[in-house]
Each structure stands twice: as C-alpha cells, then as structure tokens.
C-alpha cells in the first residue's frame, strides 16, 4: 500500500445531490473501511459534483458530465492504494 488516501466529494447543495453524495461515500466506506485516511464531504454550489482521490480529480460534473459510477471511483481509490484488493 502507498501512503494514506483521502477522498473529497464536493457537491451542490442547491441541486439535491445529497443522496448521490451519501451513496458514494457509503460505497467507499463499505469497500475500503479504515484503509482510507478520510472521506471529506464539501457542500458547495453551482451544479458541482466533483470527486478527488488524493490529488487526482477523478470526476468532475462540469468536465465529465453527470455522476460517476461508484465502481469507477472505487477503481481509482484502489489504484491510489497501490492496487490492493478489496477486503
């Protein structure tokens, strides 16, 4: 495993994205547990739904459109953790 990995989810509070945010956060909790250093949820505005794994922006609603598949974020986290398999 590489160093600790932090995930940040930035979501638009005025867009009703809470359920997507919590669903993704829950999927990451279940998949990685204590292997993540933290999952940070940032309430924001302007139609934002961005996901950053470590320093890498793995999904941006403005850049990529729509919401990410949980599986794609999980794969990005797994890569950041050094390719370890799920527990």
């Amino acid at each position: 495993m590489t160093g600790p990995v932090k995930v940040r989810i930035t979501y638009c509070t005025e867009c009703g994205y809470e359920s997507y945010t919590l669903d993704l956060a829950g999927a990451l909790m279940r998949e990685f547990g204590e292997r993540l250093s933290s999952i940070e949820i940032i309430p924001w505005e302007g139609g934002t739904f961005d996901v950053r794994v470590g320093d890498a922006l793995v999904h941006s609603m403005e850049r990529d459109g729509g919401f990410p598949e949980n599986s794609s974020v999980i794969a990005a986290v797994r890569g950041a953790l050094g390719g370890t398999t799920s527990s």
Partner: protein
Amino acid sequence: MGTMDKTRFDQGMTYHQYKAAMTRNQEKFIANEERVRLSQDDVNAFRARPLNVMVLAEDWCGDVIANLPVLGVIAMESGALDLRVFARDQSSDLMDQYLNQGKYKSIPVFAFFDPSSWKEVGVFIERPDAVTEMRAAKRREIFAAHPEFGPPDGAVDQLPDDVRARLSAALQKMRDDTTDQANAEVVREIRAIAEGKATRGGARQLAQV
C-alpha cells in the same frame, strides 16, 4: 409545446398548499416572497389576461426557492394567475414535455395556459439568462478582488477551509445583493409572456421545448 387539461391541472397543489408542504427552505422561500416588489402597472398588466400556470418544482432547488415566490406574489397581487404546483420527481409525464435542451430536468418550469382553450402561451424555465450573466460577471469581480480565492474555475476543495468559507460567504452576499434585480427581471419576463410579447422566459438560449 406542452399539453395540459383541467383534469391533470387540478391534480397539482395550489401555491399555498405547496408552500405549507415544503420540507426544507420554507423560511428562505417566505423571505424571498417578502422581497418581491410589483408596480401597479405590473399588477394591471397581469390582471388583463387571466392564465393557468403549471409549475414544476422541488424544494431543494435554489432556482425554485428564488423564482417561484416571484410567481406566487404575482398571482396573489393580481388575482389573475391560477397556479398548480407539481413535484418534478413525481411528474415525469409533465417534466418530459419541458426538458431543457431536450435532456435536462431544469426547474422551476412555469408553463402558462389559456384557461379556456388550454393552449400553451409561454414557458419560463430555471432563471433569466440576464440573471445568469449578471451573476457570472459579479462572480468574476469577486475572484479578481481576492487572489486568495484562486481562479474562478479553480477547485474549491483545494482551498483551505477558512478561505473556502470566506468565498462561500462572498458568493452568498453577491446573490443577496442582486436579488432585487433578479426578481425584477423575472417579473419582466413573466409579464412579457402574459402580455403575449414573448413565449419563452428564463433559460431561453437553452430551452428547446
């Protein structure tokens, strides 16, 4: 152009029923109502043409909280608009008729119908383009005045918490400072529809309904 009839229209909530049923943002909604100012000329213009208005809304949406109160005040002060509000996520038959760019479920939607023929006379979606442009310009000014906020298209999650909080406060103040102008533009665009001078309001460049 959307279709509507009395049976479907009557299934919606009245404006007051919707307001009472809100599960969030009700205080902000009422505060926005209290800021709406109509001239007597506006009121007279709306009284000249009674209309039924189908509204698609959700109480988590900022544009609904900002713009539906404007329509509600117009209806109350003129007595000429009969509103029925439908929850977007439970009304796909209606939402599908008013998709922004044919795919986005942008709200609010205000669809105006002649009360006798049920012919649609106009549609307002989301917010006026002029409001979007005004706030984008104000936003650029904020970033220009505060280099610590980074670039306008920068990643806010990379900002320190205290800087991000100051940016959030500055953006909220800007929205508050521009509310009266935004409300006036919403009134102007809805009035243009009521007077038959326009058939589109709100995000007109985007709407392909």
